């Protein structure tokens, strides 16, 4: 009995500091933000009503969903292609693929967004080069628009899409593929009717991760969108710092959390968390 009690005490003492820290520094202020959404500038549901009626907010929501959907499809497809080589290539191919996945993964989002500015801007690499060979006379508008945002976000999210796919591909039994080939199926057919369906859990997991991440994306759209292609996270920032309307910023945040929470709940009905690592 004494040992039991001291065990419980020990656990409580060890776990308390972190739990206390997060309650005070995260849970409590989040409730404060929720309170803002109901009380600023006047108490009531006014801010949530504004979300449903304000044209600007609506268009930003729709743009965010559209960009997130495009980025998800492109990132998962691109990640799939490179993951196949990373998991199933020859040792040399695997090393190159791993380098190309991990180096961008570890480089900060700012550096990567800046790299795209250097490539895509009016005096950037691509426009300078295309003008030098006489292909175009006026620089193409590749950045400060939705195209730039989609390119930058896809680049940021491909490495995140790789990990669930890699985990699904690694757990796939090779003998199934050999059996398909042995029964006379072509390489293409084996890939599309056996390999892809058997990695479905990885595809769902990585699509969900990319989609959820792109909903709350801030830095890349702010830099590559140049203020013209505002997404939901940047709208929150603008509502807090530029046209001080804390209540609306808080209300958008609350809606975003609820939406992401619902998506995660759906995700975990299909995929167990362990499969995502």
């Amino acid at each position, binding site marked *: 009995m004494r040992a039991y009690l001291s065990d419980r005490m020990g656990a409580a003492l060890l776990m308390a500091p972190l739990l206390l820290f997060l309650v005070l520094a*995260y849970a409590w202020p989040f409730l404060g933000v929720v309170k803002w959404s109901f009380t600023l500038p006047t108490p009531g549901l006014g801010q949530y009503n504004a979300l449903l009626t304000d044209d600007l907010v609506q268009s930003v929501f729709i743009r965010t969903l559209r960009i997130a959907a495009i980025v998800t499809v492109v990132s998962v497809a691109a990640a799939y292609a490179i993951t196949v080589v990373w998991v199933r290539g020859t040792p040399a191919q695997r090393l190159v693929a791993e380098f190309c996945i991990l180096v961008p993964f570890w480089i900060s989002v700012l550096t990567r967004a800046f790299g795209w500015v250097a490539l895509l801007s009016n005096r950037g690499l691509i426009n300078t080069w295309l003008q030098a060979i006489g292909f175009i006379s006026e620089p193409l508008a590749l950045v400060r628009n939705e195209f730039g945002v989609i390119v930058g976000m896809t680049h940021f999210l491909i490495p995140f899409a790789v990990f669930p796919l890699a985990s699904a591909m690694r757990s796939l039994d090779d003998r199934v593929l050999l059996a398909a080939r042995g029964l006379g199926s072509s390489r293409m057919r084996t890939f599309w009717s056996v390999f892809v369906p058997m990695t479905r859990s990885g595809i769902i997991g990585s699509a969900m991760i990319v989609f959820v991440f792109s909903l709350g994306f801030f830095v890349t759209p702010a830099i590559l969108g140049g203020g013209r292609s505002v997404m939901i996270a940047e709208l929150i920032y603008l509502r807090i710092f530029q046209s001080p309307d804390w209540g609306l910023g808080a209300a958008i945040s609350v809606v975003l959390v609820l939406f992401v929470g619902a998506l995660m709940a759906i995700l975990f009905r299909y995929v167990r968390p362990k499969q995502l690592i």
Partner: protein
Amino acid sequence: MPTYRPGPVSLVIAALVALFLLMPLLAVIPVSLTPSRMLAMPSGELSLRHYRALIEDPRWIDSILLSIRIGVVSSAFSTVLALCFSLGVWMFQPRFTAALVGFVLLPMVVPPVVSAITLYFLLTSMSGVSSFFGYDTWLGVAMAHSVMTVPFATVLILVSLSQLDRRIDLAARGLGATVWERATRIIMPNIKFGIVTAALLSFVLSWEEIGVTLFITSVNAITLPRLMWMGLRDNIDPAIAALSVILIIITVLVLALRSFVVRMRGAG
């Protein structure tokens, strides 16, 4: 070993994706060598003036030192908290473990912009209490970064604990070791690689943190990413290209070193 290798079509598509992934990292190299004061491709002449600016302009040095200080403090803080928490979970396996771990992981899954507005609320409220901890102070930033990095540190330490053999702890317990002795002399030496990794990852995450930092700093606590952000928003400063090249080289070197260490550990 996989017997089923990717065919030529897969290899070509994967190579295009690889090129796409590396392109923006390579593009900063020529920009960093431009003699121009604005973002442009060098035409003919190359110059190292933007690298010199990084050393000579005190703003860059100050923000690098500040970022290191914040990174070290927040990484130490979040690693210690994560370690204690994970030891509690592993040694005592309390009820509601899943719910408690889920709560700790929240800052990792909640959209960063929502964490940012939450921490903005926290620090502006604390500004009224103390001028050391509040909005736009380095301790406030370190605290906010700890909130953001502690889930990652916890995951890494919990993963390395899950690979540990429970019987060595049971043996120590049977021989009469106290909780403190079990934790410090039996368990921690066996997961030191995980603890070091957690501390390093926390430092790197704090060093690059920008989403939350933008919300909680204005003029005093200018971390390196914050300074880069300012240079990117107004008219683009090529010194950012020089800095990016240096950061990319460091990343590549550290990754190469890491894969070397992992290979040596695997061999030994």
